[in-house]
């Protein structure tokens, strides 16, 4: 179809800011979140969790709990399937300990009872005998050859030698001659930088309602970023076929990557199967912190060489990531991102994954990238300071551009880094005066963006309105953007289109809402589905006019004769064709299924001004501006929201957020009092500048925008604080005690 390769540039609806379709439901409380569903005969489930960081489970005695009136089912790991490999096994074993508890908060048993009080009372009656084992929660400790082994059997061939069995994999990227590159440098700086594990901090805790029938068929309602993946995981863990389980995603109160996998759903399903009743399970906040999927913590060695005039001659990094007791791919992603912003002749990055006695990490916006780029951008900034160079000019001088062979292999197509840096350079923020104890920091950011498997169905209703069915939970405004793209393509007003997120039986497969893929991939599939419907509508118009189908074109919502040779006919509106469709061949719909490629990488640049109180180490963020390439901003409010949200989460990560483990291996701050996400009064208004360098891989030029924005804040703030206090900070978070110590250390 010729239309396929059209890249649209003049838009009527794209780029406007219509009201969000979910707004009224959310402010009135009508929206149904994970915990909002109930069923007749429903039981309440609670988990018993390990109080130890690492312990052998000698025995679990559930007799007394079972005898308690109102208790309907109790399960342990023995009630789960016995599959012995793959990610579903890891997910299962992360949820419920097999023979050993691997982290503080690891599930040991679960109870379903007639109410919460009974379930809690039952937990207190379960007797677990533990043999406490030595534990390890920190990267360096876990790597030592004599470290306690956290979870044996995961070491891959590429894992570096000479360490404990906790060091499970390594991935290396780069090109060029490092030695020659460093030899050309006028200045080389080597540093080790550390970041703490953080949590996505979504406000809605994990919640689900599970119901398994006696015929083996199940229904699951849950708060997730991916109902299809939850179905896959649960079906594997329960040993049933996917067709037997229907999963419906609830409205979602934040995810940020943390709801891309399962934490409670298999438990609720197995309890329901055992009890023969629907089971509702809701995590409390302490459980969310202890037993969901925080991000990795990292220790990163960076070495960068630069000439006097600011050209980077070589860059090298070793990134060590721990992501809990199970292996992950974050090291693979992080190592690719580390130097992605730069056009380098000699570059090498190796990412290593280390197991520890902590919960299994889950994605958190651009997993692996914020830490990697923090480390690189902190050292680049230090070089700029040492060589007395303007940090934006240095970025521009070294920036990756179209044709650059990226540090992770592929050659870049159209990318927006230079445009983004130039926008920052001419912005008034960059030239604004600073007062005492104040300084400005900046950083580049990068994320790949994903495409992936996507299915969209679009129906033309008889009354001329349009219904779209898609399968990706809306965590950032995708329903609005999808409706807008369909309206744009069809040539009808936005409010004639309604998009819903369907369950796993109502649409073909869709990958998880992650990788900033939805506006790109679902948008692309929507546009193609609309084009399929248009093709059909042209056919119907041709039929109504009695002319050849190829002689009809679609323009601004109307079928029109292609030219004078086609004949003279009054254009037919979408509504008119829809009304007649029963008589011209039946309902009209379009659909599209694709494993979308060409997501188009996204770059951003953040500028931040801070003031550090030299007597307390307190950092106040004074001014913040985000510059980011969106390819094409479908609904600019949402794009700005993503840019602001990423900046805010990054500010929290940079300044205060941190998983704090005691010497006993227990998490000390499993709550929002001592796990400090920013509050509104901590923040200035986050200004945004959207750049639009169209992605050639999308009909409207869309690039994902959801993740790049959390990448630059860590280094931008670290660079600003370092410049304000005159000491290079090399560890996150830059909590006041740490900053004050650095200030005092510098005074001697």
């Amino acid at each position, binding site marked *: 179809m010729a239309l396929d390769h059209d890249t649209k540039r003049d838009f009527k609806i794209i780029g406007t800011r219509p009201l969000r379709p979910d707004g009224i439901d959310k402010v009135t409380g009508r929206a149904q979140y994970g915990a909002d569903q109930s069923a007749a005969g429903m039981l309440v489930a609670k988990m018993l969790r390990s109080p130890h960081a690492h312990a052998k489970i000698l025995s679990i005695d559930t007799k007394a709990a079972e005898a308690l009136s109102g208790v309907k089912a109790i399960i342990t790991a023995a009630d789960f399937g016995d599959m012995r490999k793959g990610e579903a096994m890891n997910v299962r074993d992360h949820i419920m300990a097999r023979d050993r508890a691997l982290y503080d908060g690891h599930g040991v048993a679960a109870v379903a009872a007639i109410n919460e009080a009974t379930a809690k009372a039952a937990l207190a009656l379960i007797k677990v005998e533990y043999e406490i084992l030595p534990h390890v929660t920190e990267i360096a400790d876990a790597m030592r050859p004599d470290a306690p082994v956290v979870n044996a059997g995961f070491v891959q061939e590429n894992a570096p030698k000479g360490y404990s069995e906790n060091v499970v994999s390594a991935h290396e990227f780069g090109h060029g001659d490092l030695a020659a590159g460093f030899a050309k440098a006028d200045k080389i700086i080597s540093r080790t930088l550390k970041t703490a594990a953080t949590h996505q901090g979504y406000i809605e805790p994990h919640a689900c309602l599970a119901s398994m029938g006696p015929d083996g068929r199940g229904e699951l309602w849950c708060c997730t970023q991916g109902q299809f993946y939850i179905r896959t995981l649960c079906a594997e863990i329960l040993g049933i076929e996917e067709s037997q389980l229907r999963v419906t995603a609830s409205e979602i109160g934040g995810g940020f990557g943390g709801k891309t996998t399962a934490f409670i759903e298999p438990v609720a399903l197995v309890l329901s199967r055992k009890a023969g009743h629907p089971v509702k399970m809701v995590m409390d906040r302490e459980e969310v912190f202890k037993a969901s999927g925080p991000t990795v913590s990292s220790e990163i060695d960076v070495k960068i060489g630069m000439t006097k005039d600011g050209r980077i001659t070589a860059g090298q990094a070793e990134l060590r990531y721990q992501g809990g007791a199970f292996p992950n791919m974050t090291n693979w992603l992080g190592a690719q991102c580390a130097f992605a912003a730069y056009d380098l002749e000699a570059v090498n990055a190796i990412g290593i994954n280390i197991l520890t006695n902590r919960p299994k990490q889950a994605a958190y916006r651009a997993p692996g990238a914020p830490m990697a780029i923090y480390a690189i951008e902190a050292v680049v900034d230090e070089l700029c300071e040492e060589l007395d160079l303007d940090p934006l000019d240095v970025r521009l001088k070294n920036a990756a551009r179209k044709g650059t062979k990226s540090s992770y292999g592929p050659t870049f197509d159209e990318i927006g880094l230079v445009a983004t840096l130039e926008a920052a350079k001419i912005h008034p923020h960059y030239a604004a005066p600073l007062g005492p104890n104040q300084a400005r920091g900046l950083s580049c950011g990068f994320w790949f963006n994903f495409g992936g498997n996507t299915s969209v169905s679009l129906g033309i209703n008889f009354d001329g309105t349009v219904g779209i069915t898609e399968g990706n939970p809306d965590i950032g405004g995708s329903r609005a953007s999808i409706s807008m793209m369909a309206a744009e393509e069809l040539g009808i007003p936005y409010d004639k289109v309604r998009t819903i997120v369907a369950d796993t039986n109502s649409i073909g497969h869709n990958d998880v809402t992650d990788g900033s893929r939805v506006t790109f991939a679902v948008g692309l599939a929507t546009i193609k589905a609309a084009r399929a419907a248009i093709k059909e509508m042209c056919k119907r118009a041709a039929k109504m006019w009695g002319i050849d189908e190829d002689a009809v074109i679609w323009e601004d919502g109307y079928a029109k004769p292609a030219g004078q040779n086609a004949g003279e006919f009054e254009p037919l509106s979408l509504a008119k064709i829809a009304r007649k469709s029963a008589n011209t061949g039946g309902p009209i719909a379009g659909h599209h299924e694709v494993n979308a490629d060409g997501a188009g990488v996204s770059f951003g640049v953040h500028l931040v001004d801070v003031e550090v109180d030299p*007597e*307390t180490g*307190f950092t106040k963020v004074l001014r913040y501006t985000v510059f980011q390439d969106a390819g094409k901003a479908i609904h600019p409010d949402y794009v700005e929201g993503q840019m602001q949200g990423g900046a805010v989460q990054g500010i929290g990560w940079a300044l205060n957020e941190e998983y704090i483990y005691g010497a006993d291996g227990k998490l000390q701050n499993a709550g929002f009092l*001592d796990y400090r996400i*920013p*509050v509104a009064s*901590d923040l200035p208004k986050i200004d945004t500048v959207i750049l639009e360098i169209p992605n050639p891989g999308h009909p409207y030029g869309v690039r994902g925008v959801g993740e790049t924005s959390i990448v630059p804040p860590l280094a931008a703030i670290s660079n600003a604080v370092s410049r304000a206090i005159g000491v290079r900070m090399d560890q996150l978070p830059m909590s*006041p*005690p740490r900053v004050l110590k650095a200030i*005092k250390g510098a005074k001697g």
Partner: protein
Amino acid sequence: MQYAAPETTAEATRLLADSPGTARVLAGGTDLLVQMKFGGLAPDLLVDIKNIKGMRDVTPEDGGFRVGAAVSGAEMGEHKAMRALWPGVVEAVELIGSTQVQGRATMAGNLCNASPAADSVPAMVAANAIARIAGPDGERDCPVQDIPTAPGKTSLQKGEFITSIFFPARPDNASDAYLRFIPRTEMDIAVCSAGVSLTLDTNGTCTDARVSLGAVAATVLLVQDAANALIGSKLDDSALEALGAACSAACNPIDDKRGTIEFRRDVTAVLAKRAAKIAQSRAGERS
């Protein structure tokens, strides 16, 4: 669990004294209900004091104010005369929680919860506030600093509860201030804090001072050496240095997830010095 909302002090003390199990006074409930929901606390009896007459009044007395035990932070904040007389106390109370919490939280509850990090307590101690206590044997008065005895523990006896807190009169050229350190800007718990109340003479020389510190020991500290550093001075740099040093020396903090010993010692001194300067300028404005 039993819930009672008596209308008289006598009835409240009788209920508290007669309860065979754990009895708790319920004021705003912003500590108590959280402890019941998440901390595993399960009292047998709750005695809500908000319906007792006078419990929600701020009453002028001898040139000072008597603040009922159920007066909320928001009500304190709106009381102009109290704010003018004891601005440091009111600002400390107003730091507690959010707008929602302010609508409920009381000073007496903050005091009796006996957290070393409670915000209004250092300010009340610096103000030399006196708690009035009702009990089975009648009423007694007790300085605020003698109520908390350890984290989570008070000197109140079975059947006793606080009915009001009295803030005395003070000369014109006197004022107070309270500062806490938190890693954010609100909705947080003090890592350390300092309250300073002082009186100046017509030359601006400090004639009287009380300095208190929060979150740096098991209970709020009243630091006489710190007060001595101010008395007789015009809060010049050397007096402030001596104040800071006295505060750092008096601290007996712990190392924990909220801050190190070193940080608490250093920042306590900084807060005391800054609070003293604020109190000085407020006193100047009142003279």
